[in-house]
């Protein structure tokens, strides 16, 4: 690899397909870095005793990318030795319309929703909802940067998760969200 090709990069992806830890780690590996720190957010199969059947995600995609870019900018300011940052988040809703209205299992975890006449991303339990990887020459910076990334993502990136139970559903609310009603 040429020296000039190893410029610091941010890799931001919102996708409906299953996330890959290998893919995300490989994005940030660098010859100048002795450390790659990783965070994987997974999903639990129960909430307050109720069984979670599946999750549905929704995002304000353009703003979510912008907010994640802001996080990356701050990371580089605070930890200048950080080399590469990768943030991959699973998400769902897009507005493709199906003319025939038939339910069609799509690749990448998309199913057709009659309610919205569009595709939604369905994520099975225990699959990763987010993977964050940061590389740096020494481990302290990438470990701190990854922590900062996930904490700030939960506070500021416009992505929503809906838990579907057997008989009802619930829109989740991060406690980090500064405008949320805390009594939930």
């Amino acid at each position: 690899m040429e020296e000039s090709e190893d410029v610091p990069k941010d890799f931001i992806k919102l996708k409906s397909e299953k996330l890959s830890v290998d893919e995300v780690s490989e994005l940030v590996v660098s010859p100048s870095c002795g450390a790659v720190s990783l965070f994987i957010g997974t999903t639990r199969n129960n909430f307050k005793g109720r069984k979670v059947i599946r999750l549905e995600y929704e995002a304000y995609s353009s703003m979510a990318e912008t907010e994640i870019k802001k996080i990356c900018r701050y990371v580089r300011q605070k930890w200048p030795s950080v080399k590469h940052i990768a943030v991959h988040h699973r998400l769902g809703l897009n507005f493709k319309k199906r003319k025939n209205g038939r339910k069609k299992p799509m690749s990448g975890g998309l199913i057709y929703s009659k309610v919205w006449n569009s595709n939604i991303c369905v994520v099975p339990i225990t699959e990763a909802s987010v993977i964050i990887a940061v590389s740096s020459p020494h481990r302290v910076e990438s470990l701190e940067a990854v922590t900062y990334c996930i904490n700030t993502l939960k506070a500021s990136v416009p992505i929503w998760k809906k838990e579907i139970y057997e008989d009802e559903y619930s829109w989740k609310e991060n406690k980090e969200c500064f405008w949320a009603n805390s009594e939930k």
Partner: protein
Amino acid sequence: HFPRCPGSRDRRDVSVLYFARSAELAGLRCETLSVPREITSLQLWEEIVKVHPRLAVIRDQVVFAVRQEYVLLGDQVLVLQPGDEVAIIPPISGG
């Protein structure tokens, strides 16, 4: 081009985006609304609730994103341009 209504010089067409619970309550994901060009964020909320009264129940839980910047519901004065995106943002749950 259709003729404008009297008094519409001070109004602007904005794209309102609804997400998560707010989309369920409003029954749609996006629409164009004509709102006053200069308006506080709280007044903007009230304009939107006039169109979708069911949204009133989440008033204490939402913020706006105007041109993709968060704005609390309150006295902040917004100056809106035609085509500006105004999103209703319920409590987030990314990550």
